[in-house]
């Protein structure tokens, strides 16, 4: 259900695998987050994960989302380590009986992942590297679900 990977992953293959055998569900939604950055830059960002803890915490949240949106299934693939510009960072996938639940659950999972998931992000820009904390917009997005 929750996969943390230091190596780049193939989002298409992951979505194909998740979508296979979903005749009973009828709706699969997904969101793919991609590292912004300038071409040629070696590293756009660095994500620290706490192996064992990070998967467990994201998994607990995904379980809650299953109940809240009556999902048939949910899967998240998240990178950690050094991530280059244009590389996939996160793929959230939801399966439900109807599209609305699948879309909303995906949106909900991403708001959580962007602001509460146990990951620590360092951005590498022209002015050097800095640790990033959730933006006001990230926190406002999360509040939509209270």
């Amino acid at each position, binding site marked *: 259900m929750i996969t943390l990977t230091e190596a780049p992953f193939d989002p298409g293959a992951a979505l194909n695998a998740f979508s296979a055998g979903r005749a009973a569900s009828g709706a699969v939604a997904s969101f793919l*987050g991609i590292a912004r950055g300038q071409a040629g830059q070696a590293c756009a960002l660095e*994500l*620290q994960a*706490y192996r*064992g*803890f990070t998967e*467990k915490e994201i998994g607990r949240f995904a379980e809650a989302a299953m109940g809240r949106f009556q999902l048939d299934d949910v899967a998240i693939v*998240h*990178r950690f380590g050094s991530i280059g510009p244009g590389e996939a*960072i*996160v793929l959230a996938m939801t399966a439900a009986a109807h599209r609305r639940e699948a879309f909303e659950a995906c949106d909900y999972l991403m708001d*959580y*992942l*962007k*602001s*509460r*998931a*146990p*990951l*620590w*992000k*360092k951005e590498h820009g022209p002015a050097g590297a800095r*640790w*990033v*904390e*959730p933006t006001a917009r*990230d926190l406002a997005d999360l509040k939509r679900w209270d």
Partner: protein
Amino acid sequence: MARVLLFGRLSDVAGWRERAFDAASLSSLKALIGRQGPELAQALAGPGVQTAVDKVLVRGDAPLGDRQEVAFLPPMSGG
């Protein structure tokens, strides 16, 4: 000995990510680590820093046994 892990900006302030310390409780462990420098002591006590013992979040003080893993987690930034 407790195995101590630091994440995010805490590891930059400390200059290390993992180290072993001998402490009987979380509070004495924090004091011990804080002796490495006022900047690190302040960062550890900073708002939003959470503590996990053996990968479970813990609030307040707690006794520490041998070979436990303690992680100090600054505010999470998400992916």
